[in-house]
């Protein structure tokens, strides 16, 4: 995965805005059901043609399924990615009536919102962050997304048109302003959502056991929580089947205390615990794993970050 510009994920990014608009038009015209048919055909084509996408999927599924991985497993994985990506469009358009969304743990978010207590919501490239966001906004949760945008600028331009309000709630990583804005959000009782399975905030990471290997996870979210003295909650939004999504939020740590001595060890312990939890989720919902690159590589290619469905946030 050294040539980052040529994987299918990377190439997708080169698609013109026009192309994306065309897809949006089709969605409007045809509706979700027909659009899903197109996506299935498209993903069959990708799965058959793109060796790297297959390798990335297979590499993950072999670790998680514990049995030989067949073409149809890989196809199911990549098709799920395509279908969830398609659903983002409908979620962004506010078409929540199309979906059956069940949620656990929203009492955490309701309580944080009611008491205006700031917190960090740690998501992952698992399932759909859009589904989470849609529910959050319908319940008045003040969620701001802290993430890299530059890699997915084109798609974002179009998504921003779909939901202008979302744009205002995205804090683009990089520089001092972004981190100060995150601070102000938490101080004013808002929620900062970020991804726990990709470095980005300050590029610092630690390698911890994950699905039978070792993978690098960022320490940034926990350093941020430590600096802001706020709790961290985990959020997941997994796609089940048909039109159903299951969302949940769980408490992870109330306060990140990093003692001056053993600071690194305390940080690593948190990251390890996060990786254990993420592993459980990945095992339960393997086809929702959308880090479609070699997650265990010594220096993981950033390509997956380009277009995994949630990175756009």
């Amino acid at each position, binding site marked *: 995965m050294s040539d980052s510009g040529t994987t299918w994920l990377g190439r997708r990014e080169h698609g013109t805005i026009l192309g994306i608009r065309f897809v949006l038009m089709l969605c409007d015209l045809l509706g979700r059901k027909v659009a899903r048919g197109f996506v299935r055909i498209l993903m069959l084509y990708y799965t058959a043609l793109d060796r790297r996408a297959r390798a990335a999927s297979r590499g993950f599924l072999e670790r998680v399924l514990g049995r030989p991985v067949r073409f149809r497993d890989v196809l199911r994985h990549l098709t799920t990615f395509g279908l969830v990506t398609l659903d983002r469009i409908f979620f962004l358009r506010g078409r929540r009536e199309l979906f059956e969304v069940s949620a656990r743990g929203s009492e955490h978010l309701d309580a944080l919102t009611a008491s205006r207590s700031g917190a960090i919501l740690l998501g992952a490239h698992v399932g759909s962050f859009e589904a989470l966001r849609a529910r959050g906004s319908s319940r008045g949760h003040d969620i701001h997304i802290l993430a890299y945008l530059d890699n997915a600028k084109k798609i974002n331009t179009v998504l921003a048109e779909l939901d202008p309000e979302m744009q205002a709630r995205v804090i683009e990583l*990089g*520089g*001092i*302003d*972004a*981190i*100060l*804005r*995150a*601070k*102000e959000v938490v101080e004013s009782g808002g929620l900062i959502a970020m991804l726990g399975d990709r470095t980005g*905030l*300050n*590029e*610092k990471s630690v390698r911890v056991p994950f699905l039978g290997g070792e993978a690098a996870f960022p320490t*940034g979210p926990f*350093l*941020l929580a430590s*600096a*802001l003295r706020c709790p961290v909650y985990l959020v997941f939004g997994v796609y089940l089947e048909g039109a159903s999504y299951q969302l949940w939020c769980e408490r992870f740590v109330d306060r990140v205390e990093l003692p*001056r001595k053993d*600071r690194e060890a305390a940080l690593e312990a948190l990251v390890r615990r996060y990786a254990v939890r993420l592993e459980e989720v990945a095992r339960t919902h393997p086809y929702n794993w959308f880090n479609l690159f070699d997650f265990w590589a010594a220096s993981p290619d950033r390509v997956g970050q380009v277009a995994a469905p949630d990175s756009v946030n």
Partner: protein
Amino acid sequence: MPIEDELKKLIVDALLLEDVVPSGIDTDAPLFGEGLGLDSIDALELAIAIDRAFGVRIESKDERNREIFRSVRSLANHIETSRAAVGS
């Protein structure tokens, strides 16, 4: 103690820089990137520490942030002007 020296001490304390002594920080050297090599979380910790120690809040809206965080000297200047503005 001049604000510059207070700041250097603050930087070492707040950011737990183990192999740096306050007097070893160059007042004009860049704090981020090639200088002290601080990152954005460090900037956040520093902003919080400055708020606590000097009562000066550094806001994300401030367009001069890049300039303010350039060096110890620029931070010291910002603290002085902010305090003067409040005091007057």
